[in-house]
């Protein structure tokens, strides 16, 4: 399984997920169909990830393209969980579109064919660190979508769902960060070094902790709470790939595909 066959799997997965998302939009359609079609889309995507992992002979988590692959997969999965749990009929459409955008980027971007794994990445923490972060990004993408909906739709309350997604996503962010800290100690000698990616991870977590504590105060304005979730998701994008466009990233120890 290589990148050459990725478009076939990705397009088939997109169509299945889209079918499930459209079924979810029509109340007369049985929700079983939306679950079946959307679930088949996730399964097909998962088959490609598993096959790709086996053929690469290393975890597909090194290049930007490979992390996008996990993100597309986890956004679909997180959307499915949100739909199954809270029955927002439109959420599958948004997660399908979001996942498809990142799959399309992988089809159009050629800088993903690299089978090497530098020594720093050969660690037991590599797989849990990256997958937990990508799952957190997927969950928090759903919280972001609900916050956008909350800004425009004043009639409905989205806070119960956003609260749960933010708590779960933040828990995953913490686990990703803590596994990264132990890995950093083993690889570079210190738990925390203010590397650009670490710094942006701290900013992102501060954003979500701010939301959690503002909710605990019980008197924060609703619009501001939605804005905090939206801004935190923007900060998360900086932590994931945006920091690479800043001059300070040249000193980062997290740029593994730049020689």
């Amino acid at each position, binding site marked *: 399984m290589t990148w050459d066959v990725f478009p076939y799997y990705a397009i088939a997965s997109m169509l299945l997920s889209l079918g499930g998302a459209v079924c979810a939009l029509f109340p007369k359609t049985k929700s079983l169909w939306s679950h079946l079609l959307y679930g088949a889309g996730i399964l097909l995507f998962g088959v490609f990830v598993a096959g790709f992992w086996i053929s690469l002979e290393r975890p597909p988590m090194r290049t930007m393209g490979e992390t996008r692959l996990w993100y597309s997969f986890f956004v679909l999965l997180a959307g499915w969980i949100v739909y199954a749990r809270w029955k927002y009929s439109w959420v599958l459409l948004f997660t399908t579109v979001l996942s498809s955008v990142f799959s399309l980027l992988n089809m159009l971007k050629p800088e993903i064919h690299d*089978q*090497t*794994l*530098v*020594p*720093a990445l*050969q*660690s037991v923490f590599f797989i849990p660190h990256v997958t937990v972060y990508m799952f957190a990004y997927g969950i928090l993408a759903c919280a972001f979508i609900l916050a956008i909906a909350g800004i425009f739709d004043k009639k409905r309350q989205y806070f*119960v769902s956003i*609260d*749960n997604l*933010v*708590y*779960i*996503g*933040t*828990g*995953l962010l*913490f*686990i990703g960060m*803590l*596994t990264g*800290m*132990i*890995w950093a*100690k*083993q*690889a*570079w*000698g*210190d*738990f*925390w070094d*203010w590397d*650009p990616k670490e*710094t*942006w991870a*701290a*900013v992102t977590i*501060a*954003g979500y*902790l*701010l939301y959690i*504590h*503002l*909710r*605990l*105060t019980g008197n924060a304005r609703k619009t501001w709470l939605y804005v905090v979730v939206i801004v935190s998701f923007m900060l998360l994008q*900086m932590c994931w790939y945006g*920091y690479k466009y*800043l001059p*300070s990233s040249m*000193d980062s120890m997290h740029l593994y595909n730049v*020689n």
Partner: protein
Amino acid sequence: MNRNLAYSVLPLLALSAVLQVIMGNPDLGIFSFPVNVALLLALGGVLYVLTRERVGERFMSALASAHAAAVFVALTGIGCLLIAFFPKWDFQRSWIFAAMLLLLMSNLFLAIFRYRGRFKVRFYLNHVGLLLLIVSLSLGAADMRRMRAVVNIGDTVDKAYTEEGLPYSLGYELKLESFDADFYDNNVPSEFRAVVSSEGEQRTVRVNHPWRKTWCEDIYLTGYDTKAGAESEYCILEFIVQPWKYVAVVAIVLFAVGAVLLLWGGRQRN
């Protein structure tokens, strides 16, 4: 911002700004053991006594509140943004950032002392874990030493150099026995390793696999002559002394269990 909260935040930030202007970034050395431990015990002790004796109750309630936590987390986040956008400022070593962390630690101490909610296990794991983590990485940094030595194969070293170029005695002799490296077809290293020996013990050191020399000291292989590749005649070894290492490890374990409970339980209402 609550008036009682403003009384705690603004004077401390103003004081730290004045110190910053007058003294520049603090020398971390002045906070090394036992000063850092004394500061920590003083902060925790004073806040505990004030809480128990209910001195300045309004002020302490404001400082312990979720509202204060939100303000301090936001301040720390802004501090991190400054570090991210302006790394040359070294803001993480400034008096102002130290004041922000002090406020955050005070809030964590008070929240731990005063929590009366239903979700005690999750709350304590997350807040004690975070407090210990901040303590070990901020106050603990004062006791950390990072030194490097370039060692030729067959040579023995008994000292290494700090980042400022100052020599530092290791307290033992270390010999570089051999070095080897493997490469992918595109010349990217897949692994490099050095065999080192000291005091009758021999170890292979490679990336992600340092030698735990003592309870607080680890030896890392950080570099070699990249032009010579596997034929490199020397290695760069890094000696890291970090007495607060296990405090950080305990903090990480507590925090990780708390994080699992956070994602398992989601939002729970008292």
